[in-house]
């Protein structure tokens, strides 16, 4: 196999059939009646729900739309539009109350206030980012908190380990809360929970342990993001969802997957991750991608660091069994 720009292109209808067989078989193996899918309004859950409907029929797919007060409002609208287009039964549950009961917002805001005493959640928005320009500079991965007022950055601070741990722990309660709701309905309906993690997320650990990673099956974990888009187009997923920039939709200020985690655009993540995983000669990769050796080394180092550091997310808990 040679490395080239179209190396990730799939035989879409064959791949769709393969995944549908997988979904159907997994449901049957477990003697369950169908699936429950979290619908985020993004491309991954749009594709997964489409695949589930094709595999099982819309009556056996239950969608859950789980916004909270900091979610982008269009997420709910896109998810609802797509669920209705698929004709599947769905429910919208605002999880803000659950998060407030756990003091998720308070815990996170207390850390932000310790760094920026003037922080006011009612008028400020926040996001957390990694250094940009992975191709052009060698930076370690450190997180920066950014506080915005009227979309202008008014404060930024590199986060210390204790601070980022605290912010991540509080923020991860969003995904873990969603897991609770998904499993409540799955158990109520005798169904399995279908995950929506794609390959770059899986291999680079961009998901929350027992949050969006707490599922029964992951039918698109073998797909690169560009392949997700390719298959989504076969299903006529709404253009609004296809055009939407990928985002964790975790903070109340818009942050892309690139800013928050990958540090390079998805168009590069996919091909370079594929090249890294399949050990293509670096010279070939550099030539095709128009990168220098140093640039490629920077990306590969970042991949390796994230892969090794998140191995625990992809493993079962160790036991003495």
């Amino acid at each position: 196999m040679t490395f080239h720009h179209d190396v990730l292109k799939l035989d879409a209808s064959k791949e769709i059939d393969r995944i549908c067989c997988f979904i159907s078989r997994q449901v049957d193996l477990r003697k369950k009646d169908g699936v429950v899918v979290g619908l985020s309004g993004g491309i991954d859950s749009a594709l997964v729900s489409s695949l589930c409907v094709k595999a099982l029929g819309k009556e056996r797919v239950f969608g859950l739309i789980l916004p909270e007060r900091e979610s982008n409002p269009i997420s709910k609208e896109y998810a609802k539009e797509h669920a209705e287009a698929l004709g599947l039964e769905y429910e919208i549950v605002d999880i803000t109350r659950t998060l407030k009961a756990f003091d998720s917002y308070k815990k996170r805001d207390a850390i932000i206030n310790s760094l920026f005493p003037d922080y006011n959640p009612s008028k400020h928005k926040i996001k957390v980012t990694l250094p940009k320009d992975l191709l052009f500079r060698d930076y370690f991965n450190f997180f920066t908190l950014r506080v915005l007022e009227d979309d202008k950055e008014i404060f930024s601070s590199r986060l210390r380990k204790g601070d980022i741990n605290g912010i991540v722990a509080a923020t991860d309660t969003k995904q873990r809360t969603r897991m609770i709701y998904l499993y409540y309905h799955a158990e109520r309906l005798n169904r399995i929970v279908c995950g929506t993690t794609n390959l770059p997320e899986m291999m680079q650990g961009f998901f929350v342990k027992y949050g969006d990673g707490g599922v029964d099956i992951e039918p698109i974990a073998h797909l690169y993001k560009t392949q997700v888009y390719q298959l989504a187009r076969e299903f006529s997923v709404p253009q609004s969802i296809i055009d939407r920039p990928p985002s964790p939709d975790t903070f109340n200020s818009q942050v892309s997957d690139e800013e928050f985690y990958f540090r390079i655009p998805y168009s590069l993540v996919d091909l370079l991750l594929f090249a890294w995983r399949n050990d293509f000669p670096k010279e070939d990769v550099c030539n095709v991608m128009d990168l220098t050796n140093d640039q490629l080394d920077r990306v590969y180092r970042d991949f390796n660091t994230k892969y090794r550091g998140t191995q625990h997310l992809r493993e079962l808990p160790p036991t003495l069994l």
Partner: protein
Amino acid sequence: MRDNVNDIKTILREFFRNNFLYSSDIDSISDDASFMNEGIIDSTGVLELIDFLEERFEINIENQEVIPENLDSFNNIERFLHTKL
């Protein structure tokens, strides 16, 4: 009181041995081995290292100084600390 700069590598190796997941064989890591390439430091590991260096050596590390040239090997850290102490 600041540690003797001659003890820096000893102090660093002890810190790495006690704090990093992949440091079980820290003594076999040479002074110029890259922590990133060896997979010794993960994404929060460097934050831990920065916290440690700032507290232990009473220095302040700026964002633009969080680069491999300053932090990616025992030799690099020692050289970097010499500029700050």
